[in-house]
């Protein structure tokens, strides 16, 4: 009897493997969740855009209330897609929206904000990718939800759509805002 069971072993192994493939097909291997969740915002020092009020210079400015932190750049096509949504979020005024422009020259960022509108409270910039690596992001746009203690609660990868805002981000912010 034992002997017969041995011959079923390959079948059993393959069944397990197929199970994994079925699950695997529904996942995106390229999607990289943030490891910074539940951790305080990493230390950073940035400069504000010249001539623009409201500079994001360090993690302390992300404390005290729930905030949204959006990574963008004038070179980023997908950022333009979510720009209108960001303006709506700003108008809604649920939480301050800060921005970090990276891999971007300040004059380019200013021109871009001038042309498309400026939805941000505070903005910091980095002409390199360094700040992006600091936050463990892989591209733009990405948006963090940070609680009042400066702890990262959520990261959204890609443009914020009306649906993402209504179903994920807004409820989360409301939830975090009520102590």
């Amino acid at each position: 009897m034992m002997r017969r069971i041995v011959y079923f072993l390959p079948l059993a192994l393959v069944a397990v493997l197929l199970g994994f493939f079925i699950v695997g097909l529904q996942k995106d291997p390229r999607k990289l969740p943030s490891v910074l969740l539940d951790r305080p915002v990493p230390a950073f020092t940035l400069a504000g855009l010249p001539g623009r009020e409201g500079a994001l210079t360090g993690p302390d400015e992300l404390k005290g209330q729930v905030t949204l932190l959006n990574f963008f750049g004038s070179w980023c096509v997908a950022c333009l897609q979510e720009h209108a949504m960001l303006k709506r979020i700003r108008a809604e005024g649920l939480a301050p929206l800060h921005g970090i422009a990276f891999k971007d020259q300040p004059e380019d960022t200013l021109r871009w904000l001038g042309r498309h509108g400026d939805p941000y409270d505070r903005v910091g910039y980095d002409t390199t990718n360094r700040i992006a690596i600091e936050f463990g992001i892989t591209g733009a746009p990405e948006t963090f939800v940070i609680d009042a203690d400066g702890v990262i609660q959520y990261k959204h990868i890609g443009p914020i759509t009306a649906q993402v805002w209504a179903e994920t981000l807004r409820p989360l912010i409301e939830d975090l805002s009520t102590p």
Partner: protein
Amino acid sequence: MIPEIGHYALALGLCVALVQAIVPLIGAQRNNLALMELSRPAAVAQFLTIGVAFAALTHSFIVSDFSVSNVFQNSHTDKPLLYKISGVWGNHEGSLLLWIMILAVFSLAVAVFGRNLPPTLRARALSVQAMITVGFLLFILFTSNPFERIDPAPLNGRGLNPLLQDPGLAFHPPMLYLGYVGFSMAFSFAVAALIEGRVDAAWARWVRPWTLLAWIFLTLGIALGSWWAYYELGWGGWWYWDPVENASFIPWLSGTALLHSAIVVEKRDTLKSWTILLAIVTFSLSLLGTFLVRSGVLTSVHAFATDPTRGVFILLLLAVTVVGSLSLYAWRAPQLKAGGVFAPISREGSLLLNNVLLSTASATVLLGTLYPLFADALNLGKVSVGPPFFNAVFVPLMVPMVLVMALGPMLAWKRGDAYGAARRLWLALVAAAVVFAGTYVAAGGALTDVGAAFGMGLGAWLLIGTLVEWAERVHLFRVDPVTSLKRAAGLPRAAYGMTLAHAGMAILVMGVVGNTAWKGESIQVMSPGEVVEIGGVAYEFRGAERVEGPNYDAVQGRFILRRDDGAVLAVMEPQKRTYTDPPMPTSEAAIHTDGITDHYAVIGDPSPDDGPGAFVTRFYHEPFVPFLWYGALLMGLGGLVSLTDRRHRIGAPTRARARTAAPVGGASARGAAR
């Protein structure tokens, strides 16, 4: 009109395949020869319909019929003819059609050359083969129609990725597919044998040539891909453990195991159910490779454009094939009779060890390749499994493998004398020791060189061990040269095949070890007139100029390559090309080889800040890289020589029959002499 004919031919092919899958199977079950014999005209019809479809697509590519979406996506009028043709399989739909085309060719081969097969076995094997064809035809017809039209037809196509516009890569996919699909023959015969409930030496004798043929193609296909990567990608690497590479390497490993276990079945009538399992697994792994490459479950630099429907369809195909065949296996394999017994130290024993190591290696690469998927599915987090892992686990498996490879062929069947064999290998041991010491000292005698020197010694052990085995067979130096020569001429081709393939492996090992250990590189900005020395040669930069190609512009650098003593070895002219359709830069390295070491030059971007005419340049010192190609070629050649062995001569059943009629005694005497 022609694309529609092609599409229609595919549909017709599906009908034929259905008939071929069902009718002969019933015939074999009822022992009805007429129904069984239907498989042969069906296989011919199958080949014709698929051939028409393939020709139709090729025609569309050659005449640049951009109303066919596939041609529009992957071709361009400016492309040289060769790449218009290779564009046929340079994309998902077309490559799938090539898959099916090769399936049909193999079916045809069985129908035409398999005249001496027992009719039931042939009918069942062809029926299984047709079932696979049905699956793939459904796949192509429902999810990946290569003949889809676009209206209105665009004026020109989008062109083929310039990296693929290369002779090496034009032939790489067909070779790989011939390998993958070739293993379907072993699979079909294995399933047929399970249905029959009978596996014997004769079965192994029929399966082995097909497996061998597939293995040769896969070996050469992988080598071709590796070679292409080496010269085309411009930084001298040849193996990356990328999932797509692994997808071809995993079936290669298990196919190699199958090749060896089939010998045991043929000679000793044992290891039967294991061999059947290997045959099923090897083809399943080929299918798995297709799934991995086309479904997007893994990230790879060169996966096909992925599409969830396709992924689901291939998974379904894979599931049906594997679950079906393995269920049959679980049901029928216990009834296969166990064969002859043998001592652990014997030829069988060594071949079994070979199988253990190769299957473990195959499973290990599979595990590493799929682990990111497993971890993600179980929410264990995202992990990457890259070359450092594979190198760490693969090398320890290959060391005993190579050690035993020299010893195994020296052992007798049933009961061998390990001590005696080892003693006869003294020359190999001496050679290994000399090479070890020599390379160790030559490399500078650092502690880090021990591993590399050991690897080179290992290669020498196998190379000399293999030659010693041949010398033993012909009684070299023990009898007079004429007798030795006669014996050498009398050795079966399969024996020469083994000698060549094992020697090829030895040379490959040296290439891998030597290149990994002693590769050197130099990256810098150079102004015209400057000289850089690396790997015992000097490169003098003579500036760069613009050149124009048929569908690209290029910056071409000029370097004078000199030896230590100042003698000019070569003028090297690497290019940095910018293709127009699609716009994409590529790098064409300049390689100078002396047969043992390659000198490899690449020109990069201009660097005007560093002076007029300054460019980024890269030089690679690539010792032993040619050994990789020699090794792979020798392995392929060994396979080919073995294939022409009289026992396997698949193409000449009548001749084989005529010969077996007369010298049966002679053949057995020769066999006994081994």
